[in-house]
């Protein structure tokens, strides 16, 4: 008796699952950085163009394939062509790599969340040194938020080679993160379907609260004006367009097999065309929305630092020249500096190296992305707000929801092919398979909780998924358009939805998107080849800042393995199928 496939309770669960998966940390910590680097408000132009040229068509393609074939990635591509089973396997391998390191971010979010229930916040002040006469040396050199991140959270080692030991606090948080993921995927779509209501909607509530709070902060407007002023000359920079294309591509989570997995649990008549448009539009709108919040936070932080800098200079001048309090203010600072330089040239010259030139633009120009933005910049801004505990809890809870939502998609991409395959699913119940996957990932993830773990995290973050995904999606598009045939695909869509895809979809699938992906692929390859040795940012405790170092040999080998492990699956899969068919044919011919 054929067990009918589990389904989403209603189409809304499916849409929420896709939104929860697509709207992730990249919308919060990567898009604002790109917006700032590549022309502010002007970046929206290439972003929206790439959304229409690449994002929506590829999303619709994956959803349609999943809904039509009603199987996970391995099964779906096997149906399209038996030689393409390697594409499915490559997707599963990439998802596996991603889930290994992605949950560490959730562990960090848990760590910060648990530490938010204190007054004052632990990253607000530096800890005292051993004889209680001043602050810790490392903390003095950098800021208290950076010290909390690099020393008390990561306990980072000076280089990749010095692995250090597993940090038990981080290991505990990582275990908790995996337990939470296991709880959500335990029952398959029955449990995931309920959880995505929360993980999809809660981040928006927090973002709205932060938007209102952010816009009312002192100095927020500075950030907004500076960031959103379009610098249209950046449009002529090819990197702008490449970054826009890359951001759309990775933000939607194409190629991991998660979208195929989610769509496979749909009713066959679900209107996935409408859902594809909705999900991609919501994803992009969330990015823009999150960047408004981020820029107002930037503005607040920059204004705060600028005013602190000015106050420090004023205090320095007052103390050195014994002037009356209040005689030097922010408004007359420049005149006073000139006056003092003229009246006491010798003392002023002695003091000159300590007097910093405070600049608001310099503070605003510090563009940060990734974990630095999420955990350092935001926590620095939060500690200066009123009732910082509340905002801290809200913010890290939002990060958690975003991260767990994406993790649900990743684990679905791994579990759906496993539960589809009859060999495994008949022997073990769903709970055991999910448990084993979570357990294995958790054990491997302990690498990222070591002292050098953050460096390995960066390796996985930069190299595990980038090239492989581009290749996977390219092969997917070419397979559907040319191997399966676009007319056959059209007919399938007509059977499912009741309307044929119009010329826009067909042109994008057949020509524009593959060309875009090929150009992205070529760009990345040439970039890797031209830069020569790969380098990474290591934290130097003695200086209190990041320094650039070269990767050691074995790290380069790991990078090569990561890329090869997933990309080689595609030709290997075709080869294995070819050999198997050959053997079967020979066996039949010998029998006959």
């Amino acid at each position, binding site marked *: 008796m054929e067990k009918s496939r589990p389904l989403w309770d209603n189409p809304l669960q499916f849409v929420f699952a896709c939104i929860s998966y697509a709207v992730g940390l990249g919308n919060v910590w990567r898009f604002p950085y790109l917006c700032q680097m590549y022309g502010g408000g002007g970046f929206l132009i290439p972003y929206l163009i790439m959304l229409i040229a690449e994002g929506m068509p590829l999303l619709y393609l994956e959803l349609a394939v999943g809904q039509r074939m*009603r199987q996970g990635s391995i099964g779906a591509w096997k149906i399209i062509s038996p030689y393409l089973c390697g594409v499915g396997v490559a997707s599963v391998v990439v998802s596996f790599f991603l889930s290994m390191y992605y949950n560490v971010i959730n562990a960090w979010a848990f760590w910060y969340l*648990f530490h938010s229930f204190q007054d004052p916040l632990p990253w607000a002040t530096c800890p005292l040194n051993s004889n209680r006469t001043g602050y810790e040396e490392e903390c003095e050199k950098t800021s208290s938020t950076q010290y909390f991140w690099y020393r008390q959270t990561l306990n980072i080692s000076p280089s990749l080679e010095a692995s250090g030991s597993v940090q038990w606090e981080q290991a505990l948080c990582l275990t908790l993160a995996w337990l939470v993921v296991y709880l959500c995927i335990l029952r398959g779509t029955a449990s995931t379907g309920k959880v995505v209501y929360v993980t999809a909607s809660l981040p928006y509530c927090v973002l709205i609260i932060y938007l209102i709070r952010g816009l009312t902060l002192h100095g927020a407007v500075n950030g907004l004006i500076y960031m959103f002023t379009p610098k249209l000359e950046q449009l002529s920079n090819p990197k702008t367009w490449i970054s826009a294309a890359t951001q759309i591509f990775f933000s939607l989570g194409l190629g991991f097999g998660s979208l195929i997995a989610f769509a496979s649990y749909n009713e066959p*008549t679900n209107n996935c065309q409408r859902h594809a448009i909705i999900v991609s539009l919501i994803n992009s709108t969330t990015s823009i929305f999150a960047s408004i919040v981020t820029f107002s936070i930037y503005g607040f932080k920059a204004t705060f630092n600028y005013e602190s800098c000015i106050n420090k200079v004023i205090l320095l001048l007052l103390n050195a020249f*014994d*002037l009356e309090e209040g005689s030097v203010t922010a408004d007359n600072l420049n005149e006073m500096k000139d006056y003092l330089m003229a009246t006491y040239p010798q003392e002023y010259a002695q003091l000159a190296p300590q007097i910093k030139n405070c600049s608001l633009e310099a503070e605003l120009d510090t563009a940060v992305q990734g974990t630095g933005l999420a955990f350092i910049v935001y926590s620095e801004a939060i500690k200066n707000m009123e009732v910082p505990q509340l905002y801290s809890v809200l913010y890290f809870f939002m990060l958690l929801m975003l991260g767990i939502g994406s993790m649900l998609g990743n684990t679905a991409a791994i579990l759906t092919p496993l539960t589809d395959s009859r060999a495994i699913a008949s022997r073990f119940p769903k709970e055991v398979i999910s448990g084993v996957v979570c357990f294995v990932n958790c054990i491997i993830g302990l690498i990222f909780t070591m002292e050098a773990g953050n460096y390995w995290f960066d390796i996985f973050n930069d190299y595990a998924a980038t090239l492989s995904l581009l290749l996977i999606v390219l092969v997917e598009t070419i397979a559907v358009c040319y191997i399966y045939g676009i007319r056959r695909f059209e007919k399938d869509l007509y059977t499912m939805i009741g309307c044929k895809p119009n010329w826009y979809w067909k042109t994008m699938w057949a020509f524009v998107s593959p060309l875009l992906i090929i150009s992205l692929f070529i760009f990345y390859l040439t970039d890797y080849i031209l830069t020569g040795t790969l380098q990474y940012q290591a934290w130097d405790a003695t200086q209190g800042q990041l320094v650039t170092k070269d990767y050691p040999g074995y790290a380069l080998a790991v990078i090569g393995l990561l890329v090869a492990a997933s990309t080689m699956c595609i030709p290997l899969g075709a080869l294995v199928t070819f050999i198997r068919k050959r053997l079967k044919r020979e066996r039949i011919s010998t029998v006959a």
Partner: protein
Amino acid sequence: MLRALLLTLSVVAIAHAELCKPDAQNAFKVRISIKTALGDNAYAWDANEEYLFKAMVAFAMRRYSSKSTTQISNVLLCNVTDRVSFWFVVTDSSKNVTTVPGSEVEAAIRMNRNRINNAFLLSDKTLQFLKITSTLSPPVEPSTPVWLIVFGVVLCLIVAGIVFLIISGIRKHKKKNKESTERENLEEKVEVTLENGIPCEALDIKAGHVNGVFAADDERFTSL
């Protein structure tokens, strides 16, 4: 007589001027930031405040050395600026025209820093004794770190949820097994027909039409 008095006074004044000057031996510089600390409630620094300062230093010296020989007149202030900052020394009344060693003064001030601060409604940062480092108060640390408590609570909730779901899943599975064995004994098996890997009933929900040519199948064949 008058001339001798004038002479001794001038000698004392000069001696005092010698003892208290910027960077003199055993002299300390004090910097006060009243406006920063108190804002609108700031008081003006005048001779009365100076008198209070001298009294507090004398008090600190008395408490530290436990001999009641230090008088307010032993504390000398000089070079008062608008900032407000000044230098002070503590003279030793027993030995003529000498100052109390700096280490003693420093220890005395450190011991009574809190009292001195409170007398002026200021803090360590706004009433600075340069060269005398203040002992920073350590943050209050509870016996168990707060984060472990929250972690424990969340962990227990999650584990309880997992155990609940697993047990209810096992129970449902056992019930289904019992029911299906009962049903198999009574009914025939109903097979779901598949067409190209898609269950048939899913296909004809929307796009399937009943084809009239084949519908009237029983009429094509003549009855026997």
